[in-house]
């Protein structure tokens, strides 16, 4: 890496070598941690996906080829059947659910988050308090808030139905979590409630990077407020917005806890992470579930790379 430049003086090279040394010194703890908590489990589950592992025997699991992903069985009758994750309709339904959820909720959260951030960026009394208060939904552990919502949305006892009935918005009680017509809507709503603050604060940080004098220049230029938003605020907050969307998209595409607690058995909401856990632990197909996890990982990877390329996101922080 540090090839000696032809006319480089020895002193500069020593300096450079010193910098490389201290860079490694600072990076090593993080690399070791990542290897232990990320690389090791990841490689384990990739290994399982190519084995016949089950909960009972995963230490002595046998290599199984790609049969968890795809295998062909020819029956005595001559009929040919395909099995494996790649041809499993339940899996592809989960992929569809996950992306539907991810796109709808992240879009909703981005638009609403931007709106909330614009409000919070304005000067008003008690702004600091509101900024702190809005973080509460984000701070509550998902399991807890999902349980709370589960109760509020309960079709018989829930306060949600009660209020809507009293306001005559609905005429009969709705099973928000159990009814397959509403379960996805419910998940999106609760997820938006929970992650809006995170989105809003990330965008707010971006808004505060925009120098105020630019807005004054626009005021002197007589730029209409809507045009200021489209032509100045939005382009300038875009880098922060794009990064916020990546974070949320990664989070949304591996959503598990909310679905697992609110609508555990609805095929309308079953996501990739939920179905993979189900195969691993409920059906004792550790190898098959691992194969699904591995595909989930690949899908996330491809999505993020595509997003960064298409959106020309600058993650390096330089201009």
């Amino acid at each position, binding site marked *: 890496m540090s090839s000696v430049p032809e006319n480089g003086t020895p002193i500069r090279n020593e300096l450079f070598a010193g910098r490389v040394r201290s860079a490694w010194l600072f990076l090593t703890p993080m690399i070791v941690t990542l290897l232990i908590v990320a690389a090791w489990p990841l490689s384990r589950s990739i290994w399982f996906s190519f084995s016949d592992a089950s909960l009972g025997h995963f230490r002595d699991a046998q290599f199984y080829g790609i049969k968890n992903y795809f295998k062909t069985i020819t029956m005595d009758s001559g009929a040919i059947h395909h099995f494996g994750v790649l041809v499993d309709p339940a899996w592809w339904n989960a992929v569809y659910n996950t992306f539907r959820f991810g796109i709808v909720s992240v879009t909703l959260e981005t638009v609403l988050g931007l709106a909330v951030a614009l409000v919070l960026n304005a000067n008003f009394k008690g702004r600091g308090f509101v900024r702190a208060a809005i973080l509460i939904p984000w701070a509550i552990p998902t399991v807890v808030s999902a349980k709370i919502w589960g109760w509020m949305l309960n079709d018989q006892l829930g306060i949600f139905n009660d209020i809507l009935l009293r306001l005559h918005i609905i005429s009969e009680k709705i099973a928000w979590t159990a009814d397959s017509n509403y379960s996805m809507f419910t998940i999106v709503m609760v997820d938006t409630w929970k992650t809006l603050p995170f989105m809003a604060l990330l965008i707010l940080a971006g808004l505060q990077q925009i*120098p105020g*004098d630019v807005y*004054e220049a*626009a005021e*002197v230029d*007589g*730029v209409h407020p809507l045009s200021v938003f489209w*032509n100045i605020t939005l382009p300038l907050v875009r880098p922060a917005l794009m990064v916020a969307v990546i974070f949320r998209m990664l989070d949304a595409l591996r959503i598990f806890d909310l679905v697992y607690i609110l609508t555990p058995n609805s095929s309308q909401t079953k996501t990739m992470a939920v179905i993979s856990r189900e195969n691993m632990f409920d059906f004792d197909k550790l190898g098959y579930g691992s194969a699904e996890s591995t595909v989930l990982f690949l899908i996330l990877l491809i999505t993020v790379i595509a997003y960064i390329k298409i959106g020309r996101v600058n993650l390096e922080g330089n201009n």
Partner: protein
Amino acid sequence: MANISIKNVTKSFGAVKVIKGVDLEIKSGEFMVFVGPSGCGKSTMLRLIAGLEDITSGTIAFEGKVVNALAPSDRGIAMVFQSYALYPHMTVYQNMAFGIKLGGATKEEVEKRVRIAAEMLQLTPYLDRLPKQLSGGQRQRVAIGRAIVRDPKVFLFDEPLSNLDAALRVATRLEIAKLHHSMNNVTMIYVTHDQVEAMTLADRICVLRDGYIEQVGTPLELYEKPNNLFVAGFIGSPKMNFLNGKFAAPYKANSIGVRSEHLEFVAKGGWPGKVIHAEKMGSDTYSFVDLGMTEPAIIRETGTSRHGVDAKVSLAPMKDKVHRFAVDGKSI
């Protein structure tokens, strides 16, 4: 063209009164410079005229029409900010075109105006660059260009040269002076705390202190007939020499002031003292003479000085060049 009349204007930020009652008439086509120490309210005055801040009391009128409640964009002004305030994501061309394009000018009209301004400010090669790809001086010229294309009746400059190095300041100062000549009848209001900028650019200078106007007048008026001690000390470099006590008594004043170029060495009579330091500038020499006051007196001679450091000398003011001040600091 627009004459601006400012009547009894005050401005408070919360409980803090920053502008404490200012009356000023700015003539159409005039180059008015605001000077004063830091924090005296120069920028605030400019922002009040621009409409970026609300006036607490009093009126500002353009051509007789009160504009207190008029939005900045409706006042026919253009402003050049100290920090440039360029749109960071737009090219030089877009920066200049943005405001007028939205103002309803046709595409050809926009193009023409931007080209002319760019030509005038030697920005044509940079039209496709982003502000971050420009030097400080080029950014400053873009900011000026953005103001020019608006074709304003009033130009407002807030310390536009303070971020530039010395050579660039002189060059850009010249640009601004040329700009004022080429744009007939455009009123310019220019904030600075640079002496030289004020003296060289201004038709009239307005000296502010602590939210009040101390004096308004042409550069020479302020130089030759300062109203009070503050203006006398603020205008001119090096600072005017102030003397009191036994020095002032013969002039029937509480204190007197003499500029360094109005002092001369005399063979006898005058004020005795000792040279303690000399600054040789090439064309001039400034000798610092200890007359027994807390501050040394500074005397200017053309060329080199006859007196070295430690020389015993005698100083006297030239005839009719002594400024006299009363106890309250007013000129007499």
